[in-house]
């Protein structure tokens, strides 16, 4: 791994179009600023790992689950309730809208 020493206000450039700015260093914490093409996703490593792990698990879902999962599907309020599945959710609780987070007005 390449190791470089930089001070606050200095920059590292990767390739032609990625810049990493050292914004602030305080104690054991460093704040970095990034300039990169918008197709380049920038993640905190631990978040990226969590998502990658979740994706790997999600890729293991088999078609066996479909029938039971359909029962979790909302009534959808659609007029197309005449589906052949006939799997109505047992208790539909969508009447009053039980939003955990009230949307900002």
């Amino acid at each position: 791994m390449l190791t470089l020493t930089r001070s606050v206000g200095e920059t590292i450039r990767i390739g032609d179009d990625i810049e990493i700015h050292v914004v602030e260093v305080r104690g054991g914490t460093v704040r970095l600023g990034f300039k990169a093409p918008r197709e380049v996703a920038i993640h905190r490593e631990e978040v990226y790992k969590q998502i990658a792990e979740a994706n790997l698990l999600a890729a293991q879902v088999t078609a066996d689950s479909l029938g039971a999962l359909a029962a979790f599907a909302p009534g959808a309020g659609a007029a197309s309730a005449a589906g052949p599945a006939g799997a109505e959710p047992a208790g539909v609780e969508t009447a009053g809208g039980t939003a955990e987070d009230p949307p900002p007005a």
Partner: protein
Amino acid sequence: MTPSPAATLAAPAPATAPPMQVLALAEPMPGFPGHRDFVLVAADAAGLLFWLQSVAPDGPRFLAVPAAPFFPDYAPVLPRAACAELGITDGAQGEIYCLVTVPDGDVGASTANLRAPIVVNPATHRARQIVLTDGAHPIRRPLRR
């Protein structure tokens, strides 16, 4: 000007989504580098379950649910850069899907990933898994109500 009766649709019917949509990911999904080309195929008659299937022979396949009917209170703030890249000005124009996990085949414990939704521009068929900066959206939200 001869009006063609077949060309005039009264209203787009949201329930009759096309059975299959080809999607090009702007960037591979975390954990699956190298897979950008997917199809979104309806997995049930009601249009509430979809397979997000790589076109590669041995590529991954995910079960995806549209966010709106399953999580009506879910209104993620999408990063502007990601929206611009997909060609949508806000989340309203994009279709949002969440990937489903069924731990150990236990359907009752199924969860959906609200932290990293798949956002699709249905007009251009471009899509991306967007990792939200807002940690309030859970990676494992129970699907069971």
